[in-house]
């Protein structure tokens, strides 16, 4: 794991990245969004379950863990307690010592919050804490946007990780060993790239109920090829450098040469591609959802939200929320990407001047 040690050169690059203000601020913002929406954390901000309930002298923290049936808090039903109702119930009795603390957005992404006598999408309503309004079935837009972000970013990060691992392995092997492995690998990739990805997704989605795992699988199966070519070129270039030759002369194994010498020197290209891969994965997933071939109903998703917005142009808060969210996130990721590219530009920091 020696190669993971931060080198002075890398520190210099990171410092430079920090100096690019737009990129750095975007990075901090994006990290903040990630943290807030992270599995287990997001539930404290946007959730139908209360943060804290004090009922008959006992304190409950319902956010995580098993659900509390309504009977736990004096309702007559056995399904999950509606904590907003509970709050209302406690408020009716000012003398009671029971209280409920709800999250900022007291809705989850699935529940239908219908108001009697009002139909269709409802505009933003601060009193009911629907900050971005609701959709056709009374679901909170902000909650769906929030959890949709979690799915989109989680999906994109997982996709990037898998694609990079495969891309690096295959690309390195092709570039470093060359010969028949290279020739054969290139042909396989060329053929593979000609399979129409969109059709495959549409066919699969129309036959089975697509889960996030299946979608990720399809994305990876058709997405791994792009990284291989960059890695192959980089490896080829590094391989022909003198230091690789000297390492070989000194008797270093292939393993050592690849991991100790070649890979660390290709890191800039990898880092540069990361944000753009994430951005394109988010965009593709959203596009698929928009077309109706993405995540299974009723998973919160940005594409679905966008499509709903377009279908209900008389409820502009849906389409603006989804569109705004998408623009902000893609912009952030792109700014980060540009800053990284600039910071890691080998022309500025190459040791082989």
């Amino acid at each position, binding site marked *: 794991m020696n190669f993971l040690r931060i080198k002075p050169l890398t520190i210099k690059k990171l410092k430079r990245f920090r100096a690019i203000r737009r990129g750095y601020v975007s990075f901090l913002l994006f990290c903040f969004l990630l943290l807030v929406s992270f599995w287990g954390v997001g539930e404290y901000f946007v959730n139908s379950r209360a943060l804290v309930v004090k009922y008959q002298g006992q304190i409950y923290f319902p956010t995580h*863990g*098993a*659900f509390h*049936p309504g009977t736990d808090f004096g309702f007559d*039903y*056995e*399904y*999950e307690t509606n904590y907003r109702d509970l709050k209302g119930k406690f408020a009716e009795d000012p003398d009671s010592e029971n209280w409920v603390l709800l999250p900022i957005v007291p809705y989850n992404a*699935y*529940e*239908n919050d*219908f108001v009697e006598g009002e*139909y*269709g999408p409802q505009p933003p309503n601060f009193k009911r804490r629907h900050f971005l309004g609701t959709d*056709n*079935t*009374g679901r909170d837009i902000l909650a769906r946007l929030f959890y949709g972000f979690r799915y989109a970013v989680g999906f994109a990060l997982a996709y990037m990780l898998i694609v990079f691992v495969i891309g690096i392995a295959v690309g390195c092997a092709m570039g470093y060993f060359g010969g028949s492995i290279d020739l054969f690998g290139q042909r396989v990739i060329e053929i593979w790239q000609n399979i129409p990805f969109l059709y495959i997704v549409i066919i699969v*989605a*129309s*036959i*089975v*109920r697509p889960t996030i795992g299946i979608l990720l699988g399809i994305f990876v199966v058709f997405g791994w090829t792009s990284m291989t070519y960059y890695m192959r070129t980089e490896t080829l270039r590094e391989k022909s450098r003198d230091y690789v030759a000297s390492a070989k002369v000194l008797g270093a194994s292939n393993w050592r040469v690849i991991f100790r010498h070649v890979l660390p020197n290709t890191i800039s290209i990898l880092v540069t591609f990361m944000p753009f891969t994430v951005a394109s994965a988010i965009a593709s997933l959203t596009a698929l959802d928009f077309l*109706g071939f993405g995540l*299974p*109903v*009723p998973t919160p998703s940005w594409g679905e939200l966008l499509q709903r917005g*377009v*279908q*209900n*142009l*008389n409820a502009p808060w849906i389409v603006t929320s989804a569109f705004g969210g998408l623009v902000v996130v893609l912009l952030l990721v792109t700014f980060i990407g540009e800053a990284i590219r600039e910071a890691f530009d080998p022309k500025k920091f190459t040791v082989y001047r």
Partner: protein
Amino acid sequence: MKFLIISTAKALLTFPILFLGACGGDKDEPLEVSGAIQLSPGQIEEALAYRNPGAESYFAENSEFFRVKTAGDLPDGLVWESGDGEKEFASPEAIRGGKEKIWIQDFPRTLRVVGPDSATSFRRYLQDDHSVSLVKKHPETGGYFPGLCSEWAISEDRKTVWFRIDPEAQYSDGVPVVARHFFFTFYFMRSPWIQAPWYNNWYSEKYTHITSYGDDIIEVGLKDAKPDTLRFFEEDLLPIPEYFYDEFGEDFINRYAWRFVPTTGPYIIKADDIRKGRTLTQTRLGDWWADDKKFWRYRYNPDEREFSVIRDPEKALEAFLSGDFDMQRIRTPDVWQEKLDKPPVKKGYIVRAQFYNQTPRPCYSLRLNKSKPYLNDINIRLGLQHASNFRLVLEQYFRGRYERMQSSSDGYGEYTNPEVKARKFSAAKAREYFAKAGFTKSGADGILVNEQGERLSFTVTTGYKRLTDVLTILEREARKAGVEFQIEIIDSTAAWKKVQEKKHEICLTALNRSVELYPRYWDFWHSFNAYKEDGSVKPETNNFTVTAYPEWDKLIDRYEKSTDLAEIKAIAHELEQKIHDDSAFIPGWVRPYFQCAYWRWVQWPEGFSSRLAREHDELYVHWIDPEIKAETKAAIKEGEDFGETTLTFDQHQQKP
């Protein structure tokens, strides 16, 4: 290399030419082969004398089926009827003329009405709505009135029908309709060249013979006796002009793809009026043969009907609001309430109308596949009945404007069992039933589990993407009863296949129903359609619940054979009760009316439409009033306000 360059250049040149040719193919049809051209007396004689050689030999080979007799051979004692007692349903005030503009989502891919690509939503404008059949069902009473025939007679065993063809009946090109054309229908419809297995089968299986007594009388034999015998002649057995198909052969599908077949109806399509992919215009015949017939006059009033393609329904709605189209069908309450809440409606230029009808309803429902684990348990099925909150769907999604379906055969009048009522949503009751089936404990997510730790979870399959919201509401509510619905929305063809193969657990489907006297049970509830002889589930049938009870089979067999309406009614009621008790059918919702919006110059008869009409434009009784049109156009310019108009016609509303 040189060769390669030249051939590439050639290919590049030919490509755009081919492309253009495919787009602007409106001129490539020779004019002689269109039913829109009026023939001369000589040509008419020629057309009547024409005999298709293939058909001739086919008739000779099947002389048992195709019988030719003379007028003198007609059996005695036939009781001729002509539907005289029925009332007219069009308005004598109707004004002929004007141009009606209509939007369609897809341009028809062919003008054929049979064969590949012909079963589109445009087919009704080519045949179903316009062509005159032998008889038609009266939209108000459900009785029959004459179309191509002037009168008919039915044998006592209800298996043979005689028709006297109206001497005035003729095609749009002026050729009279004769008995021989009905013979040709059988030859045509049974031909493999039309590539239509359904028609091949129908015309081979349903009839026993056709006999002509001269040119103007035919006799048709039916395999099964039915109380409503004439149903077989409402939409089927239309005459086919033999002379028009003198090139009928293997290449029929392509050769006749864009030829307008002579029609007995009022509208023709001229070759010049087809602009492929964009618009298509129908022209009214100046002197249509049925113009003075009692049940056909004052109908089909616009002189021209122009169809334009608009792919996106949202966009079409906007175009309608800006006056590009005359009428708009309304399918969902959000269009009625919100999307039409715009100035032209508020100022009364556009009128909204709601008409309560009484037709068999498309049965939107959840069907439980009893061949799947747990769903074979009556307690689970009863629990699911109570776990499905259609009340909330109706109240919120359908805005209280639709009604709960009560039984599997709503809308059949007295043949619907009034005692059967759908079970109401109750989380507590559902939990009681689930407990009886062994699901007593709640998991961490609130879903019930049994002793073995299995979760109470079912997949709900549907092909209706537009009903996503309905399913998400049902799914949320079902959680309250401790059952999980996994929603599977797939491509409609894939969903249909899955359901037909009975690979689903629960499906949300609706089957469209034509206006019939009494419901069908055999397709959905007979064991013949549930299991194969080897005990495996039978695919390609509509028994989606996989119901197989010998006792039901006996009832259904008796029902199918019966010609006694009282018995049919009694069995229908009994079966409906059994279906209710069996609980594999969770009734969804019905729309007890149709809705439309139209610019105020479109006028309607008193009472708007008729009891059995399913859509506003089905009967063609509306007309365009030029004076009101001019008045409205002027009013729009001035900004004059007529006041919002919403009409409700509830003369046929069935009160619960």
